[in-house]
C-alpha cells in the first residue's frame, strides 16, 4: 500500500511538466525512502533523475517496493485538474493496476479523485557513480534559462568554459556568435541572485542547447540551479527541492565540436 500526501499539488505538476517532453513513459519507483524516477530520452543523450524523499510528503507510507509505470502525457492531463495549492494524495495497492490521485481544495470541501491506468515499462536503470566534479556553478535558475534561450537563437550548441575568471557560455552560429560571462556574485539581500563558482580545475565542454532549453522548464521548481562539470563526463543540472529532494538532468557532452 502506498499513500503519499503532498501539501502542494504544484510540486508534482511542475516536475511532470519539466520532464514530459524528454520522457514519454516511465516508472515511479516507490519505497519507504520516497518516490524516485530515472529515465533517458529516446536518443539516450539525456537522463532525468528525480528523487522525492519521504520527508517531502506528509504523511508518507509505502509498505512494499512498487514501480508505477505511468504515461506522463496521461499524468499531465489528470494533473491539469488540480489547482496549484490543492493537496495531492497518491495512492496505490501493493500490486496495482491503477494509481489513484486525490485533490483536496484548501478553501472549500471539494474533493476530486482520479485513477490512471498503469503500464508495464521495461526500463534500463543506469548506475550513476558519485562524482567529484571539477567545477560546480550555482546561479539563479532564471538566469540560466535566459542564457540558454538567448544562445539557442544563434546556435545548436553551447560551450561552457569555467576558469579562474568565471564561467563563460559561448556559441558560434551561422548568423554570428555570442557569449555570456558570469563571475562570482554575492547579494546579501537577495541570496537567490547569488552566483557561486567552486572550481578545482578549469573545464570546457560543449552541449546541445536543445536539451538545455528543455531542462530549463524546471526553473519554476527552484530559485537556484546547480551546474556540475568535469571533462569527459556528462553535465549535471540540478534543481534542489524541499527536504533534500531533487530533480536532476544529465546531458552527454558533444565531442569533436571544438574546431
Amino acid at each position, binding site marked *: 500500500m502506498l499513500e503519499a500526501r503532498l501539501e502542494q499539488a504544484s510540486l508534482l505538476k511542475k516536475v511532470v511538466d519539466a520532464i514530459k517532453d524528454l520522457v514519454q513513459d516511465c516508472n515511479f519507483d516507490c519505497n519507504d525512502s520516497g518516490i524516485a524516477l530515472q529515465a533517458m530520452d529516446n536518443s539516450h543523450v539525456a537522463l532525468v533523475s528525480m528523487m522525492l524523499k519521504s520527508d517531502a510528503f506528509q504523511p508518507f507510507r509505502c509498505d512494499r517496493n512498487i514501480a508505477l509505470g505511468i504515461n506522463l502525457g496521461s499524468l499531465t492531463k489528470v494533473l491539469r485538474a488540480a489547482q496549484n495549492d490543492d493537496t495531492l494524495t497518491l495512492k496505490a495497492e501493493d500490486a496495482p493496476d491503477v494509481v489513484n490521485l486525490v485533490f483536496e481544495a484548501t478553501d472549500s470541501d471539494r474533493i476530486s479523485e482520479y485513477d490512471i491506468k498503469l503500464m508495464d515499462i521495461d526500463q*534500463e536503470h543506469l548506475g550513476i557513480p558519485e562524482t567529484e566534479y571539477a567545477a560546480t556553478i550555482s546561479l539563479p535558475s532564471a538566469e540560466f534559462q535566459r542564457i540558454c534561450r538567448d544562445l539557442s537563437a544563434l546556435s545548436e550548441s553551447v560551450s561552457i568554459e569555467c576558469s579562474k575568471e568565471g564561467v563563460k557560455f559561448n556559441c558560434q552560429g551561422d548568423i554570428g556568435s555570442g557569449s555570456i560571462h558570469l563571475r562570482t556574485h554575492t547579494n546579501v539581500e537577495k541570496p537567490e541572485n547569488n552566483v557561486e563558482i567552486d572550481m578545482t580545475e578549469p573545464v570546457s565542454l560543449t552541449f546541445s542547447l536543445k536539451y538545455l532549453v528543455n531542462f530549463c522548464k524546471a526553473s519554476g521548481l527552484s530559485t537556484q540551479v546547480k551546474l556540475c562539470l568535469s571533462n569527459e563526463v556528462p553535465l549535471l543540472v540540478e534543481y534542489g527541492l524541499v527536504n533534500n529532494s531533487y530533480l536532476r538532468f544529465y546531458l552527454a557532452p558533444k*565531442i569533436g565540436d571544438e574546431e
Partner: protein
Amino acid sequence: MADTREDMQMDMQEIEQETSPSDVFMAPSIHKPDILTGKSYSHFSPIPSQIADDMSKECVLGVDEAGRGPVLGPMVYALLYLPIELQQSLLADTHHFNDSKVLTPQVRSSLMRKLCTRDTDLHASCGWATRLLSARDISANMLAPNQYNLNAQAMDATIALIKEVLAKGVNVKEIYIDTIGRPETYQKKLERIWPTIQITVAKKADSLYPVVSAASVCAKVTRDAALDVCYEPYQTSTENEDAVATDAKGEIVWGSGYPSDARTSTWLKANMDPVFGWGSECRFSWSTAKELLEGKNADVNVEWPAEDDGNGLRMTDFFKGEDGDELVDWFGMRVTEEMEVF
C-alpha cells in the same frame, strides 16, 4: 504490399514459366560485376544501322518491365524502338513477338539472341535499352525514411531510359508503355514531359502492341540472366562445401524468385543469416523477407541503434546499466547455500 499480391496468385505452371532456363542467353545487357555488387545500371544497344543511316526516320518505342513481384533478383525495365512501318511486319508477322509471359523461355532466349546478333533483320532495325534496378537499391529506397516506392522508382527508370534514347537523336514519334498504376495519370505525366510525342499507356500493352512485346522480351531475358548471375556465388560455395549433395548441376535451388514459389521460400529460410539476412540479391522490403527476418520466430532480435547527429555521446557511454536480478535487488541474496558449507 498490394503490388506484389497479384503475383502471389501464380499457379505452378506460371512458376515454371517464370523460372529462368539454365541456358539463358547472356545478353550484352548483363554487366556481371555490377550485378554481383548489387548496383543498378543502364545498358544501351548501339543505334541500329537502318536508323543510324537516316536519323530522321520516324520510330516507335515500347517499354515493359520484368521482375516486379519477385523477392529475389533485380527488376528490369527495357525499351525497344524501330522504324514505325516495321512494327507489325517485322515483330509480329515475321518473328511472332508476344507477351513474354506467353512465350516459352527458350523462344524468348532465341529471340533475344537474334536481336543481339549482327546481320539479322532484328539487329539491323531495332535498338533497345535496359535499366536494371538491383534488389539492394529497390529495398533501400523502399525502406528509406522518406519512402521512395516501387512505382515511383519504376516511373523514374522508364523516364530516364526514354530521355537517354531521345538524347541520342532517335526520332521517336510514338511511345507505348505497359501501365504502372492508373494509366490516365501516368499518361498525363509522360505527356507533360514529351508533349510532341504520341504516348499510349495501357494495361496489358505487352500483348496489344508488338513493340512492347519485344521490349518485354528484352526485359525478361535480362532479368532471367541477371538472376542466374546473382546465384553464381551461392553455386560455387555449395559445390565447395559438399560436391556430392548438389542436385543436378546448374539447377537453381531458389527457383523463380517469386515469394509464392516454394523453392524460393525454402531457400530464403535455409540461407538466412540471423542478423544480416541475405545478400544484395534479396529485396528486404518484401514482406516475405521482412517477416522471416523480423517476425515473431526470428532467431535473433537485433536492435539497430538509432542514429544521432553524429558528434553526440550517450548516457550509456558513461553510466553502466545495473545488471542484476531484479528480484535480488528487491529482496537480497539467499544465504542458505553458504550455510551448508559449514
